[in-house]
């Protein structure tokens, strides 16, 4: 792969000196709400540079909401999201789009669009009225398709592809944006296990080989523990724990975050934590035990 295509992971050396302790992307004391419904209050999150950060948590804990706030889709009602030291909302839209890419959960492939055309649309933030399709655009699109293994599909229609192929095409589009930071909202949803691993491998590759900072929301805790370099566990809009999966994933944490009794063992393949839910009968016993405790405490 051409080394010159690696996205710049650090804006400049000077900037690094000036703000050596602060990462490129962070949320400071943000309160996130849809209309009147508050999802998270006073939430602060740092995305470590060059990490593969995965956000996990039970349904409706605010994972996707946090990701939307980090990618300026949702304006915090309080607090601020900072990108390279600037409030993200105050930055020009195209400038943000050249630094931070987002693959949302729901994206619509226009009727009758080809793979090449769709991936090419990722070049939008680099284009203007006069500069609509440069040699650089062409080259980056080819490369993004090669990296995601969809180059041979370039002339196919997106509606004809399988779910796994389609997700690769969308990732290719996000790659064509050439952003050092890439945010993915549940990239493995609706995919079978082989394609889930496929997409996660691709993410790991982008992180390791190209030094991109990745942030993903994942449902599967074991996938998160295996692939993440940095894990953020959310519950009810608050960070319960964050750090390397090996350091933070314990049976206690899983019980606290998901309310699920389990064992955490070493993944025989990778040595990362592997969450094994307790058997149904064991959990039922635990529930009655808890009930008894509550009853004695109440009396």
């Amino acid at each position, binding site marked *: 792969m051409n080394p010159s295509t690696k996205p710049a992971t650090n804006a400049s050396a000077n900037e690094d000196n000036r703000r050596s302790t602060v990462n490129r992307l962070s949320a400071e004391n943000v309160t996130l709400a849809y*209309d009147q419904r508050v999802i998270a209050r006073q939430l602060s999150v740092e995305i470590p540079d060059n990490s593969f950060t995965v956000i996990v948590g039970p349904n409706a804990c605010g994972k996707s909401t946090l990701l939307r706030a980090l*990618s300026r889709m949702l304006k915090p009602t309080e607090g601020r999201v900072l990108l390279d030291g600037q409030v993200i909302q105050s930055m020009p839209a195209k400038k943000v*789009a050249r630094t931070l*890419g987002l693959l949302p959960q729901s*994206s619509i492939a226009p009727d009758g669009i080809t793979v090449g055309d769709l991936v090419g649309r990722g070049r939008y933030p680099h284009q203007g009225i006069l500069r609509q399709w440069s040699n650089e655009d062409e080259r980056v699109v080819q490369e993004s398709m090669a990296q995601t293994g969809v180059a041979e599909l370039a002339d196919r229609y997106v509606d004809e592809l399988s779910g796994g192929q389609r997700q690769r095409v969308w990732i290719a589009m996000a790659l064509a944006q050439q952003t050092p930071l890439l945010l993915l909202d549940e990239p493995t949803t609706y995919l079978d296990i082989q394609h889930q691993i496929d997409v996660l491998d691709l993410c790991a590759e982008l992180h390791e080989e190209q030094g991109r900072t990745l942030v993903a929301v994942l449902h599967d805790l074991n996938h998160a523990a295996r692939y993440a370099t940095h894990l953020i566990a959310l519950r009810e809009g608050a960070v319960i724990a964050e750090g390397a999966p090996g350091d933070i994933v314990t049976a206690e944490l899983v019980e606290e975050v998901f309310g699920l009794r389990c064992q955490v063992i070493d993944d025989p393949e990778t040595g990362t934590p592997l969450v094994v839910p307790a058997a149904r009968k064991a959990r039922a016993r635990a529930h009655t035990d808890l009930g008894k405790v509550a009853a004695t405490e109440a009396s």
Partner: protein
Amino acid sequence: MKATSTQIPRTKAVRTGGFSLRLDLRAFTVVVLLLVCALAASVVLIGTGDFPIPAGDVLKTLFGGGDAGQEFIVNELRLPRVLVGLLVGAALGLGGALFQSISRNPLGSPDVLGLSQGSTAGALVMIVLFSGSATAVTLGALVGGLVTGLAIYLLAWKQGVHGYRLVLVGIGVSAVVTAVNGYLLTKADLVDAARAVVWMTGSLNGRDWTQVWPLLALCAVLLPLVLANARGLRMMEMGDDVSYALGVRVERVRLLLMVAAVLLTSAATAAAGPVGFVALTAPQLARRLTRSPGPNLVPSLCMGATLLVTADWASQRAFGADQLPVGVVTGVLGGIYLLWLLVTERKAGRI
């Protein structure tokens, strides 16, 4: 629609200096052919009427070589009428393409959303309540269209405007305004009512240079504005989130283009009456010809102009000069098309 495009490259990159462009060859060909059709139909239409003129003479006269009689008929009577037809068709085609793309729905066109009915209400108020002049009626139609457009936008607004809500709100507004129009007609005396109904059908009869200039000026201002934002609109096909992530200022582009689309359709309706279904059909036909995703703005514009002029020519040929308003022809053809669209959309499971 199997992969037919695999053999021949669809696009060609054009690059000179700092300028670069990706040209969709098929769309480009379609635009050229439609322009040729529109111009040919215009020449034939100028030659059609109680005093027929051969196409060769029409061309000669247009370039300043005809005799005095032909000169008068061509330049004073028929040319402005044809120009109004071309401009109205172009404005409706473009306005329709904008609306359909913004609402992401082939039904989200000004006819269905009630903009034409809004213009009609404005015109009827002028005709029935004030017995206004032709200028007053035009202004009334313009204001009626703009007010309706604003009402739809405000009613459909909920943290941004979304496709389905826009269409549903539009259908509701359309029903209300249609009722108001019916009431106004029942209040009218016979002369006003006849005048109102003629206006409501949409016709090019008796259009002259005073209609051409304002329309031309409006198109000259709005077209560059719309095309400058067309790339953003293209991105918005992929959903608000994706386009936002790509750096498109979604709400701003949408508001700007909706205002432009409302202005275009209102002005077109004010000039020729609510010529039915051009805004609905032109973008869809253009899209089927170009087979290209995206809003297809320029092909829709050319298709609108071609459709309207051809429909006017057909009505004059079949029923004689100024017998059948062009709105009847587009209405019949467009209605059939709408039925077909509903059936195919239903089969595809989209509605």
